[in-house]
C-alpha cells in the first residue's frame, strides 16, 4: 500500500520535474531538519508545487508540518536540502514577500490597535507609498469580507473574524503563494464554511495543513501525506484520502464524505 503511494509520489514529482518551467511555485529537494538532541523532524523531503496549485498537507501531530512551513518561509535553517520559491533559492532570514504564512492561532499574528493597522503592517514594511498601502488594505479587507471591521481592535473580534483578518493581513502583501496552518481550528461551522468558500476562490498557490480532512477535500486537488518527517504519499486528494488502510496506518481517518463512494 505504502509502496504504491510512494510510486504515486515519485510519478507526481517526475511529471513536474521533467518540465521545470516558470510555473514552479515551490521546489523542495531532499530537505532534512533536526532540532538539537532530537530525532530528525524532516527526513529527505522532496516535492514540487506548481504555480496555481492547491495542495493539502495531512498527517498526525508531530509529523513535521510546522517545521516544514517555517523552513519554507526561511525562519528555520535546514541542515540539508534545498528550497526554491518561484525558482529563487530561499535564504534563511531573508524576507520574501511572495510567500505568506497564516498561523494556526490568529492571536500570534494580530497585534495592532485596529484591523486596518494590522492589515497595513506588511505593505508598510515593504515600503509602499501611503496610497498604495491604502489600496492594498482596502482590497485585502474586501476579499476576505471583513471591511466592516476595519476600525475595530483585533483583540475584540470573534474567532472567525480574527481568522479572516489574519488572512487579510497576509493577503495585503499580495503574496503569490499562501500557506495555511490549520485554518479551520476553533472555528464554528458557519465560519468554517465561509473559510472554505474563500479558499476555493483564492487565486494564489495554496498549501493547507489541516486535521479537518473534509476541508482539505473541498479545497485541494492534491494531497501530501507526511508522517514522522517522511513523505508517505503524494497524489490526488480524493484517492489518497479514500485509501482506508493507508490513512489508518498514519493516524488518520477516511473522511465520511468519501466512505459512500466505496
Amino acid at each position: 500500500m505504502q509502496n504504491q503511494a510512494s510510486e504515486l509520489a515519485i510519478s507526481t514529482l517526475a511529471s513536474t520535474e521533467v518540465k521545470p518551467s516558470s510555473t514552479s511555485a515551490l521546489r523542495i529537494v531532499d530537505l532534512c531538519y533536526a532540532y538539537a538532541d532530537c530525532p530528525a523532524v524532516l527526513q529527505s523531503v522532496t516535492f514540487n508545487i506548481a504555480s496555481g496549485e492547491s495542495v493539502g498537507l495531512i498527517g498526525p501531530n508531530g509529523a513535521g508540518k510546522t517545521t516544514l512551513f517555517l523552513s519554507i518561509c526561511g525562519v528555520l535553517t535546514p541542515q540539508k536540502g534545498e528550497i526554491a520559491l518561484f525558482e529563487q533559492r530561499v535564504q534563511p532570514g531573508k524576507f520574501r514577500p511572495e510567500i505568506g504564512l497564516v498561523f494556526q492561532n490568529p492571536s500570534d499574528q494580530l497585534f495592532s490597535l485596529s484591523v486596518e493597522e494590522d492589515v497595513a503592517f506588511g505593505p508598510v514594511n515593504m515600503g509602499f507609498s501611503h496610497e498604495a498601502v491604502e489600496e492594498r488594505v482596502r482590497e485585502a479587507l474586501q476579499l476576505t469580507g471583513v471591511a466592516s471591521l476595519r476600525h475595530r481592535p483585533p483583540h475584540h473580534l470573534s474567532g472567525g473574524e480574527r481568522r479572516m483578518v489574519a488572512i487579510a493581513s497576509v493577503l495585503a502583501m499580495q503574496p503569490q503563494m499562501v500557506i495555511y496552518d490549520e485554518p479551520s481550528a476553533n472555528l464554528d461551522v458557519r465560519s468554517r464554511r465561509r473559510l472554505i468558500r474563500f479558499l476555493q476562490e483564492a487565486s494564489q498557490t495554496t498549501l493547507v495543513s489541516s486535521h479537518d480532512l473534509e476541508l482539505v477535500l473541498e479545497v485541494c486537488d492534491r494531497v501530501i501525506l507526511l508522517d514522522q518527517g517522511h513523505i508517505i504519499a503524494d497524489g490526488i486528494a480524493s484517492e489518497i484520502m479514500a485509501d482506508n488502510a493507508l490513512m489508518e496506518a498514519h493516524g488518520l481517518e477516511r473522511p465520511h464524505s468519501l466512505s459512500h463512494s466505496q
Partner: protein
Amino acid sequence: MKLGIDDYAQLESPIHQWLPKYKLIGLTALILAFSFVQKLALLPLMAVTTAMFYQTARLPFKFWRQRLQIPGTFLAVLLLLLPFMAGETVLAEIGPLNIYREGLLAVVQISVRFVCILTLGLVLFGTAPFFESIRAMRSLGLPPILADMTLLTYRYIFEIGDYFQSMRTAMKLRGFESHRLNWQTLKHLAALAGSLIVRSYEKSEQVYKAMLLRGYGQNMTVIYQPKPTRRDSVLLSLTLGLAAGILLAEVF
C-alpha cells in the same frame, strides 16, 4: 525555548536526595556567609567548598559553563576596569595606564565570591524540580500568596515565551525589521508588548476560573513534607557548621 534550571533535577546524588527544606537552609546560610568574606586567605577555602558541593551534586560541567556565560561578560568588564581605576599601590605600568594592587586584589575577591555564590545557587536550584524548591520555601514560612505567584509565574513564563516567539516570527514574515529607531518601530514594539500583556491577562482570567473550580482557596492545606532522615540532619549540621566557621574566621 530552553531555560530549564531543573533540567538535571532527575539525577541521583547525595545533594539531590537531601531534604529540600534542609538543603535550602544550609545552602542559603553558606551563600550569606560567602558574601561576608573579605579576607584573601579565606577565598581558597570558599572555592574548594563550592567545588566540593558541585562535585557531590554530580551536575555536569557543561551546565556550569553555560550558566556562567552571560554574567561572565560583566565579570570581564570589571576585570578590565578595576585594576586600572582603583587603588594606590602601583604594581606595573602599561603605557599611560597604571595597574594598582588594590584594584587587582578587589577583582580577585569579587570574582571568587561571585563565582562561588552563583555556583551554590546552581546546586540549590539545579538539584530538585523547581516546585519542590518552592514547597520547601513555603514550609519555611514563605507566604502562600508569594508561593502561589512564584509557581504560576514560572509555569507560564514558558508559555508566554512561546507566544512571544510566534508573534515575533509573524512580524518578521511580514517584513518587520527593528533596526531603526523611529516612532513607527516604537509603536509596533509597544503593540507587541501590549498584545503580550493583554493575552496574558485574558489567560489569567481563564486560569483563575479553572483554579476556583478545583477548589482554589478552599482550605489552606498543610503541605506534605517527608520526614528528615539522619543523613539530612547530618548534612545540614555540616553545612551550617561550615558557614559558621567561615563567618568566625572572617570576623576574628
